[in-house]
């Protein structure tokens, strides 16, 4: 069991989600549970609740999971996915209000040091365009 907060990347585009996850792995390393999802079930752009739920479970950590999203549906579907988790897990997942790529790298950097879910979220959200 990994004690570090997990990171989930949810984009409308599987390429964006996979690319952001690659950046996290190469820049931050393997100390953080990481999962991504994106794209509509039949191909094309989109997000769906089941895949987000599965990604959260893949990246699960008892320390919690921080979710990075891109636009609109990615956020609302992520919130729906969180509502489908068991009660005991719902309070340990947050959707960060941060840019998806930069936020994922910042959040993972913070998580790799063993920081709490709240610290991870704060670091991701601290990032604002200059």
């Amino acid at each position, binding site marked *: 069991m990994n004690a570090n907060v997990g990171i989930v990347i949810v984009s409308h585009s599987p390429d964006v989600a996979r690319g952001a996850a690659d950046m996290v792995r*190469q820049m931050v390393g393997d100390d953080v549970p990481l999962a991504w999802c994106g794209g509509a079930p039949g191909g094309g752009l989109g997000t769906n609740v089941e895949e987000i739920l599965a990604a959260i479970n893949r990246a699960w950590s008892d320390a919690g999971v921080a979710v990075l999203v891109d636009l609109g549906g990615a956020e609302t579907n992520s919130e729906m996915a969180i509502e489908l988790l068991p009660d005991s897990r719902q309070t340990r997942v947050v959707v960060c209000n941060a840019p998806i790529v930069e936020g994922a*790298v910042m959040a993972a*950097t913070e998580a790799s040091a063993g*920081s709490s879910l709240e610290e991870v979220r704060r670091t991701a959200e*601290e990032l604002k365009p*200059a």
Partner: protein
Amino acid sequence: MTQNAKGVVRVLHEVGLHARPSVRLTQLAKSFSSRIEFGPSDEGPWTDVKSIVKVMKTKTPKDALLHFRAEGTDAQAAVSALIALVERDFETET
């Protein structure tokens, strides 16, 4: 016992403190309990090395000097380790 430590190093990395070097610096800093800061001179302005966002915001370029200062029980070890990381061009120790 609380120590105070200082050190200076020049950034030789081709792109300065960009994304990957900043991540490495922050990760290493967070492995120490001391408060650790760096600045462009020994009078600051000081940046918390444990904050990845603040470190990146400094946009420290190649050839800039990094003045470290630390306070805590492992301050000396922290400054030594961070300077060594910069000197080996932010490569992870093997």
